[in-house]
Structure formats: structure tokens, C-alpha cells
């Protein structure tokens, strides 16, 4: 069975390149270019994992999307990998520690992340789900 990944990113090239990559690795890929469409796609497609860009139209829009995912009973357990440009996002005061209960994402990955890195994280998270 192939895993389904949802990519939410406003950068058309990032979506395309990740789509091409994960498709070639046997994943089913769906994507959205903004948060609103992303949430719709998430509810519709029920992916196994979401790759989310931290900043879309404005600073921290990705966090807002993550919060909304976590607030939705239907999809709140979907793992989220968040792509960031800087380690510490200003104004969010997020710590990446696993004990941080309200932290809405499972993993941060700093750009530019190579395909190998991203794939590694995706597989790691999907493996841990199986157990």
C-alpha cells in the first residue's frame, strides 16, 4: 500500500519538485498552494502525512494551518513536517521539544533540505506510526 502525502506550499516549484520526487518514490502526492485549500484537501484526501511550509502569504501562516489541523477532530492526528527558513520563528516562541504539548507540528526541517533528508524524516515518522 502506498502512503499518501499532502504538500501545502505557496511556492509552485517546491510543490512540483517534491511532487515529482515523492511520486517517483512510490508515494501518492496531493498538494495545495494555500492554507485554506490545504485544509480542504486534507479533509478530502486524508493523507498519511502533511509537509507544510512555515510562511506562506505572511509570517507564521503555516503555524495557523497547523493549529487548525490539530483542532479538527477528523484529521488532528495527521503528522506534520514543517519546513522553515530560520530555526526560531519570531513571535511564536516555539520550542521543538517533544514535551511541548501544544507544539502543533511533529518535526521541523530547515530549508534547503535535500530530498534525502526530507524522505528520511517522512519515513521515520511513518515508521513510528506503524508501531
Amino acid at each position: 500500500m502506498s502512503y499518501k502525502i499532502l504538500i501545502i506550499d505557496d511556492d509552485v516549484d517546491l510543490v512540483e519538485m517534491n511532487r515529482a520526487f515523492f511520486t517517483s518514490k512510490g508515494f501518492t502526492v496531493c498538494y495545495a498552494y494555500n492554507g485554506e485549500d490545504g485544509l480542504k484537501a486534507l479533509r478530502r484526501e486524508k493523507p498519511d502525512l502533511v509537509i507544510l511550509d512555515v510562511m506562506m502569504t505572511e509570517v507564521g501562516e503555516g503555524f495557523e494551518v497547523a493549529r487548525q489541523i490539530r483542532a479538527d477532530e477528523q484529521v488532528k492526528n495527521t503528522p506534520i513536517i514543517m519546513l522553515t527558513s530560520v530555526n526560531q520563528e519570531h513571535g511564536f516562541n516555539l520550542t521543538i521539544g517533544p514535551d511541548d504539548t501544544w507544539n502543533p507540528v511533529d518535526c521541523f526541517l530547515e530549508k534547503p533540505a535535500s530530498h534525502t533528508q526530507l524522505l528520511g524524516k517522512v519515513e521515520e515518522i511513518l515508521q513510528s506510526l506503524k508501531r
Partner: protein
Amino acid sequence: MIIEKGKILVVDDELGMREGIRRILEMQGHEVDTADCGHKGIEKGISAEYDLYFIDLKMPDLEGTQVLREIKLVYPEAICVIVTAYASIDTAVETTRMGAYQYIPKPFEPEELQILVHRALERRWYILEARRLREEQERRLLEVAHEQSRMRTIINALDDGILVINQEGQVVLFNPGFLKLLNITTEIAIGDNVLDIIPAQLSNQIKEIFANRNQVQAIIQEIVIHPPAKLVIMANTTPILGRKGELLGVVSVLRDISELKKIDIMRSQFVDMAAHELKSPLTAVQGYLELVVDKTLGEEPELYEGYLKRSLERTKSLVNLINDLLNVTRLEAGKVRREIQLQNIKELIDDRIDFLKNDIKQQNLQVLLDVDSDMYVDADREDMLRLFNQVIANAIKYNKPDGTITITGHKNRNYVKVDIADTGIGLREEDRQRLFEDFFRAKNEHTRNITGTGLGLTIVKKIVDAYSGKIEVNSKYEHGTTFSIFLPITKSQLS
């Protein structure tokens, strides 16, 4: 001590007595005035303060006691000697009770008078000296009080908060700025212990200085106050040392640095956004190249050429972004060296249209020009070229194929007004409002494949602002956008 040269008034109706006393006293070097009746005695006696008064007890018009009373009323410290021919214990007691210094019975010997005057003037000297000291003290007190009230006024007028605390932790001094900054509403009196009322970070600073009294030094710290949130205070607590270096207390100076903090946050936000804008295209390029290099990745090789093309495009946009970033920071830092010269608007626009002709051709756009040829502004040529280049390039980039760009330029009062209108994708109202924000780019299905830095209009706005001009945007989503640029017309063309 004694008054060597006394000023003496003799009030007596008997000419012989008056002149007798005068003669004796003048011989001793004193200055003597006389009055021949009670009324004149009062009049002279209160017109100026004499060092010594001789008052005859029995005068036809007034009793000497009456004269004594009137003079004492005006000069309570006046030394009055009662001269009387009717010497009796009763009159003596009576006049001294009324404030007479002494009485002398008639007749008296010159030596008697001299001794009396000597003693009286000695006493007068002490009275005057005491008065002088008293007045000096009062004057000093007044000065001190004045100085204190002046310091007080200054301290109270300060925006910075001041808090002085003694060794016992009691408030010695504070100003309204202190109460306002820390939003303290409880009443505070001098002598109160406020360490529990002030924010913990501040009281900790104060306690720390008291705790390390041997190695005291200033503590400077940023304090974030809750509530109200977003208030950041720079607290500077310094020990107050006595003459021997002993710790007397501490003074805390508090300054509101919230605005500086805001600028700080905006700056780091700009850096974050710049990092994002730089890393996103890099990630795309890296990812595409990985796909192309590792032939096992990605799908059909036919797509590879597209990936390479996109990589090239993103790389170019990265270079543009870096240039724009440099321009923005340069304009912000005010480092721009402007060579202000007369610039012809039409010539500038023609120059840019020529510069961008290939892009115009590619989109098959039609350019309609209606710009007055005699409009000038005082500006730096580079600034103006960048300004028009950016706005015209946007009109090309966000146009629809086979669309039109209409550029009109006319005088508008004291301004040159240039309208650059396209027939392109337009802007949604919410996007139009945010258009000049750093890195803002309208995101919709039409703009997805258009690259841009999100800084072009930031730069445009900064240039226009630098020349006291303005820029307005009108737009209709999916129909087109018009930018109106207003620049002050050159002084030589002012109407």
C-alpha cells in the same frame, strides 16, 4: 561688641533736657535727632528705626508711655529709655512692663547717661547681630527650599521613572514617571516598602545590590511588564554611596524602550522573511537539480528540461532579490548619495520603455504613451530610473498577453502625475491594501508562475517618499491595475 556710632532720638518737650542729652551724646560721636513733643516723637520714631530712643514720660500733648507703645508697635526690638522727673517704682515697673529698656530719673549726671547709652548700644548690637543671623538663615532656608523644589520639578517632569530606596527598603523618592511606567495604582508614600509592589525583576535588581554591598555596581536590565504586555522597560539600578563608600541606598532609573523593541522585532522579522525568500528558491533549485542529476528520481526525463529552465529562472530571481535587498537596506540606512539634477519625466519613461522592450514584445503588449514633454523634477537619475522601471516592469509582468499599458503624464498642481495602467490580472482589495509591505506578493492562480522579490514596491515607495511624493494604486481584480505616481515638480516650473 557695641555700636560705635549710634543713631539716637530724643523726645522731650523741655528744650534744656533735649539739647543737654544731644550735646553729651554727640560729643561721644553719636548721631542725635530730637522731637519736642509726643506726636512728633512718634512720627520721627517710626519713620526710621533708631538704635536708641530717649522718651520723656510727661509731655504736654502725650504721655511718654503712649509714645513708647507706638514705637514698640512698629519696632518691637527698639531700645527705649524713659526719662522721668517723677521717679518712682511704679512708673519704672510700668514702663519696663511695656517694653522700655531702662528708665533714668531726672536730674542725672552726664556719666550716668554715658554708662546707660553704652550698655544700651551694646545690647542693640546683639539685637542687630541676632537679627542679621536670623535673616541670613531664613534667606538660606529659602534658597534651599527653592533649590529642592526646582530639583523636584525637574524629577517630576522626567518621562523616565525614578525610584530611590534606602537601606531599609523604604521609598525615599519617586516620580510620577515611575508610577506611570510600572502602572502602579496603589498609593505610595515616602517611607513605604515597595519591593512587593514593583515588578519582581526590578525588586530583584535592588535586592541584589543590597546583598552584594561590598562589590556594588550598576545593574542594567530589560524588563517586560505584564500587564500591559508589550511594554519593555530598561531598568538601570545604581547604588548610592556615602562619603566613606558605604551603601546608603539605590536609585533605579526606568525608561520605556518599547518602541525601540518594536523596531528591533520588525528588523529581525525582515531578516526572517528575507531568509525565507532566499531559501525557498534555493530549495527549489537544489531539489530540481537533484532530480535531474540523480536520474532515478523524478518521473519522465522529458520533465528535466523544464526543471532546468525553472532552476535558471529561480536563480535569476535570487540575484534580483539580493539586489533588491541591498537597495532596500541602502535606502533605509539613508546611505544613498543622491545627485539631484533636473530630470525630464518623458525622457525617463521613454528610456525605460526602450530598456524593457523585449519583455513588452514577448507578451505582445501595446504601449500607449501620453506624457507631456516639458515636465521636470529635481531628482537623482538612478532613483527615477529604478522607480519607473519597477512600476513599468510590473505592468508588463502582471499584464495579460496582448494587453495594453497606458502611460499618461501631466502636471497636477505642483506635482507631476504619472499614471501607469495595465490591463492585467488586477488585485483583490485585500491584496491592494498590503501591496507596499515588505515581501508582500499577491498570491492567486494568476501570480503562481510569476516570480518576484516582493520588494519592488517597497523600493518604489521608499524612493517616492524620499522625494516627498506619493503613490496610489487603483485596481480591479482580473481587469487591471493603475499606479499613480506624484512627484513634486521642479521649483523652476512652480506656478
